[in-house]
């Protein structure tokens, strides 16, 4: 891996090795589980994360979310990009 590479969005994002989405029935919440990490997801986050399976492109994920929530695509696009970039920085997302 190139040392100078700045974190960027993978073309077809998927959860990094050792990271998985899990429904926590005790706390009634979707959580992202990783090495020594438990991240509780909020709102539509799990709908984004479940689509990070390595088969969909980021624009496809945005399309599906916009359709699912009947929401403005531009707004959804910003939210999706922000969340995915944050997960790339935490090394919980791979391409």
């Amino acid at each position, binding site marked *: *891996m190139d*040392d100078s*590479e*700045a*974190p960027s969005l993978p073309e077809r994002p998927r959860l*990094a*090795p*050792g*990271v*998985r989405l*899990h429904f*926590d029935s*005790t*706390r009634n919440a979707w*959580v992202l*589980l*990783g*090495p*020594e990490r*438990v991240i509780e997801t909020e709102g539509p986050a799990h709908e984004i994360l479940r689509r990070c399976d390595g088969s969909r492109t980021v624009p496809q994920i945005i399309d599906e979310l916009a359709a699912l929530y009947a929401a403005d695509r531009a707004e959804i696009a910003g939210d999706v990009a922000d969340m995915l970039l944050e997960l*790339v*920085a*935490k*090394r919980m997302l791979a391409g």
Partner: protein
Amino acid sequence: MTIPATHADVPAPLGLLAELTHRCPLACPYCSNPLALESRTDELDTATWTRVFHEAAALGVLQVHLSGGEPASRRDLIQIVAAAHDAGLYTNLITSAVGLDVARLTRLKESGLDHVQVSLQDVDAASADHIAGYPGAHTRKLAFARSVVELELALTVNAVIHRANVDRVPAFVELAASLGAGRVEIAHTQYYGWALRNRAALMPTRAQVHQAMQDVETIRPRYAGRLAIDLVVPDYYARRPKACVGGWARRSLNVTPSGRVLPCHAAETIPGLEFWSVRDRSLRTIWTESPAFQAFRGTDWMVEPCRSCALREVDFGGCRCQALAIAGNAAFADPACELSPHHARMLELAEQESSDAEISYAYRGRHAASNVTATPAR
């Protein structure tokens, strides 16, 4: 059985440390397991561990950390991983990598293993093998770590830091990155169990600790997005205590090889606590009702300066075992806190013990006469 009303608000634990065995091929002087280890004949069987995992998941546990000793010393490790996975738990294998090969690792992955943590003792083979008390260990660990990554399993490198390697923290991080780890744990030695016996040989100087902490922050941006660097902070030169295990009986629990359930790894050092066993009771009953868990749960047990402290629900008074070891009472403030009347004593101990340039370890299970004395490479 009914749960008393006072227990209704007991939070559910997130993590279970399953100490599968105390057997280990290595003899690391910083081992935090107790001085007296539990024997193989007392270890829980596969069926009992399977029940424990299902009870843990039902209780709210999300992650299980399979530890030891060396978990690979158990012949049924694959069945154990499969059982934990079937229970719905995120499975983390904490291993020395000695005693595991690629074939077994492949089967562990197929059984649902999520993550592997490999310990390294140093970046230099001769020093690493000397610390582990096991010739050839380092080379095997590196090869194994590469296999973990090749199998597309998530890898964490764990580096326990002490006087002999404290000057090489950046090199540890770089080694972890070169192995393809996603995470590295820079864990300053916690002085419990066997490590407490070796404290004088392990304690770094204040200047070394300060430099090591600064080094991590300097290099952290360089690894952003490709390697997470987690710190277990050193206590003896601290100003504030760590929230040990996230607060007593609040987030996690330990099951020892024989089935005793502990609020923390070193809890058995505290006299007078009554521990219950998974052989006799369900994990839920133990978590909510056992005397050892109730002893320091919440804040009612606190004395000053903790009792009226604004941070009492931030750090929960620090570590009970350290309060006992240094201040002489498990209900006192962790002396790592500068508000503790025993803080100066702790600092003095560290400064005194770290001033000796010679490093001579007591290795578990070996006679003192066979110890090799070495001065740290600088």
